[in-house]
């Protein structure tokens, strides 16, 4: 068996050159990428565990003296590889706008209020079953300058490492039934058949009665190459 990882099947990721998303025009490479066989460099990856995550980092509602405004939600799920195997002990990073649609970032100019009780940054390590869980508030939608009256669909940003350099993934999680999907070129850049994989599911079983609603979002990273190699 090969030690390599499976390649991304077509129809998974958005093409780098997606003209509807204007910033791609000057930033997407013009040359096709050069095929690289996987050596140890690609099939290994950083172990970013202890020390990177402090107790409470998974709860974005308790990082300040008071609670942030907005609808409190639980976002949880599992990190798996495409063979269905759990990816345990891997760093998951989350960042998002506040309930008014404003990031606590110096360059965000959207005239919506900052929330002194919300930074919008969380991190955690997956457990032995690949599970993760965040407590946060539902972010607001926000406008951007891509086209006339452009609004991003409501989303959380996620960053994942997996176990290998080739498994590294930065993505966004969306909410079911968002009316903004149809005009968001970042969401629409993903091949249609794969878009649903970025949308979380309402999860009644994980809600906490009288406290918070819950959404489930499983994240699937690349698995091992199953093709036997002749050597």
């Amino acid at each position, binding site marked *: 068996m090969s030690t390599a990882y499976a390649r991304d099947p077509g129809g*998974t990721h958005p093409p*780098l050159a997606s003209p509807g998303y204007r910033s791609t025009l000057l930033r997407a490479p013009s040359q096709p990428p050069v095929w690289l066989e996987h050596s140890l460099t690609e099939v290994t990856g950083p172990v970013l565990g202890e020390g990177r995550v402090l107790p409470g980092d998974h709860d974005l509602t308790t990082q300040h003296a008071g609670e942030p405004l907005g609808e409190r939600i639980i976002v949880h799920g599992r990190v798996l590889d495409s*063979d269905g195997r759990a990816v345990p002990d891997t760093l998951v990073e989350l960042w998002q706008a506040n309930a008014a649609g404003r990031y606590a970032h110096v360059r965000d100019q959207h005239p919506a209020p900052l929330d002194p009780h919300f*930074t919008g940054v969380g991190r955690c390590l997956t457990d032995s079953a690949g599970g993760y869980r965040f407590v946060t508030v539902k972010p607001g939608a926000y406008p951007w300058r891509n086209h006339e009256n452009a609004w991003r669909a409501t989303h959380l940003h996620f*960053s994942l490492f997996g176990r290998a350099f080739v498994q590294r993934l930065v993505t966004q999680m969306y909410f079911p039934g968002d009316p903004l999907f149809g005009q968001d070129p970042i969401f629409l*850049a993903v091949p249609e058949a794969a878009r649903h994989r970025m949308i979380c599911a309402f999860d009644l079983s994980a809600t906490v009665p009288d406290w918070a609603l819950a959404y489930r979002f499983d994240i699937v990273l690349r698995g091992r190459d199953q093709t036997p190699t002749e050597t």
Partner: protein
Amino acid sequence: MLGLTPSQTVGPFFSHALTWPDGPVVDEGPDSFWLRGTVFDGEGALVSDALIETWQPDGAGRFNHPGFRGYGRCGTDDHGRWAVRTVLPGVVPAPDGRPQAPHIAVSVFARGLLDRVVTRVYFADSTVEDPVLSALPADRRETLLARRSADGYEFDIRLRGERETVFFAV
């Protein structure tokens, strides 16, 4: 087979979440140096909102060796500049067992990149023959060579256009 989660752009507002005070420090031992560079877009403009991540073995070619993180992460500043403090990586074999020249794997994330782009830093003064480099046309090979600088090496990244950096499909 489960369907893979698609990639999305890191967007413009990640630096407060994804950069760490010690992110640029892969290693600061006596043999360490600064690997620095600038990121340019297709019109030669500075890219001041990119995230650069590096991955490498220690000087003996060992990945994840105890005490050696091997991973660096640095956002670009207002001048499109990034830097990681590190050491020369050791030799790692290619899949066919031949040696590869010392190299550092690099991911570039940015607004306008719907997926990361992946490249490799090689060192212009290395004497090891490399199967990946030698398979490239000479003019494109140049884009992967870090040059000696006052305090280490310099490696610019051109996302698009003239002297566009070679990016790899991994």
